[in-house]
C-alpha cells in the first residue's frame, strides 16, 4: 500500500501550464464489518492530498468516502521557476506517503 506514481514533465518553458498526473496504490478501506467474524473494520482512507512546489502548497484536497481505491488525480500548474514538486497523501492510519519530482524551467 502507498506506492505512488507521479508524472511531471522534466522540462518546461517559463509560464507554461503543465499537466501533472498522480496515482497511488491504496485500499481505501471503508468502515465495515468482517464477513466471517463480525468484528468491525476501521475506516482507512486517504483523507488529505497535498501538492507542493518548492515547499509551498498549491493544491490541497480533502477526500471523503466515495473516492475509489488506488486514487488517480490529474491537475495543471503554471510553472515560473525550476524546482521540486512534493506530493503528500495522508491516511486514517496515520501514514504519510510522499513522492517527489524535479522540473527544469528554461
Amino acid at each position, binding site marked *: 500500500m502507498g*506506492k505512488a506514481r507521479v508524472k511531471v514533465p522534466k522540462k518546461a518553458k517559463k509560464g507554461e501550464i503543465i499537466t501533472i*498526473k498522480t496515482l497511488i*496504490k491504496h485500499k481505501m478501506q471503508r468502515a465495515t464489518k468482517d464477513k466471517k467474524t463480525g468484528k468491525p473494520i476501521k475506516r482507512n482512507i486517504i483523507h488529505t492530498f497535498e501538492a507542493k512546489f518548492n515547499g509551498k502548497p498549491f493544491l490541497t484536497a480533502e477526500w471523503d468516502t466515495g473516492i*475509489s481505491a*488506488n486514487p488517480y488525480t490529474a491537475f495543471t500548474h503554471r510553472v515560473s521557476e525550476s524546482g521540486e514538486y512534493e506530493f503528500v497523501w495522508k491516511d486514517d492510519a496515520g501514514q504519510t506517503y510522499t513522492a517527489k519530482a524535479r522540473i527544469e524551467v528554461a
Partner: protein
Amino acid sequence: MFGTRYRMGGVAFTALGALAVAGVFTLGAGSASACEECKGKFEVDGKKSGYLYSNPSTQAMEDDDFDNPGMLWVEKGRKLWAKKDGKANKSCQDCHGAPEKMRGVYPVYPKYDPKTKKLINIEQRINRCRTEKMQAKPWKWDKDNLLGVTALIGYVSRGLPVNVKIDGPAKPFFEKGKAFYYQRRGQLDMACKHCHEDNAGKYIRADFISEGRGGGNFPTYRLKWQKLGSLHRRFKGCNKQVRAKPYKQGADEYVNLELFVKWRTNGLPVEVPGVRR
C-alpha cells in the same frame, strides 16, 4: 405511416428499413472506440476483443501506461522478479534473465505438461518454479505477488497474437474445456455460450456483453474489483451469476476452460494489463 408515405415502388422503403437496422446495430455492438486505429488492432478475423465493448473512458485508461492502474502490479512484479527467495536463494532472474526475455511465453499458455499429464497455466508454472527450483512457498491465487509476476509476463508479450496449440496431447483437455463452455449450469441453467455467443454485443443491464475472448487481457484491472484479477476469478464470477457453484481458482476444470477461451482469442493481441468495467 412515415414508411408508407415515402414508399415509391418499395425501393425507398427498403432503404429506410436497412438504415434503421444499421442504426440499431451500431448502438448494440458498442464499438464506440476511442480511436479508429485501435479498432483494427483489436478486431482480427471478425473476432473482437472485450476492449471494443468497453466505453471510451475505460479504453483511454488502458491505453495510457500511466493511467492504467494495472501497471502498479507490473511494477511490483518487476521487483519480485529480481528478488531472491526460498531455500535455494534464487530469483526468477537468476534462471530466466531479464523479464523481457519471457516475451512470447504468455500467448502459448496453458499448455500440456508431461510431468503431471494435464494442462498447466502461467500461474501454476510460476508456482512450480517457486516450489521446485526456488524451494519457496507457492503464492496464493489472486494475491498481489502472483498477480504481479503474471501481469509482468503478460506485459512483456504485449502486442503479440495469442496463439495456443490445441492439437496433440492438449486435444482431450481442449475438448473438456469446450464441453464446459457449452454445458448449461446453475439455477439459471445457462452455459457460457448463451451470453458470449448468442447475445454478445447486447446490453446486460448497463453494459455490453463481450464475446468472451478474454485470453489476451487477463490479469485485468476491473474497476468493479478495484484491483487486478485473474481469468479464473472472472470464471468464478460468471459461474456465480448463473447461480452455479464455482470451482476454485486453479481447478482443472478452469484450466481446461482457460485453454478453450484462449483458443477463441487466438489471433487477437495480448493487452495485459487490460482495464475493464
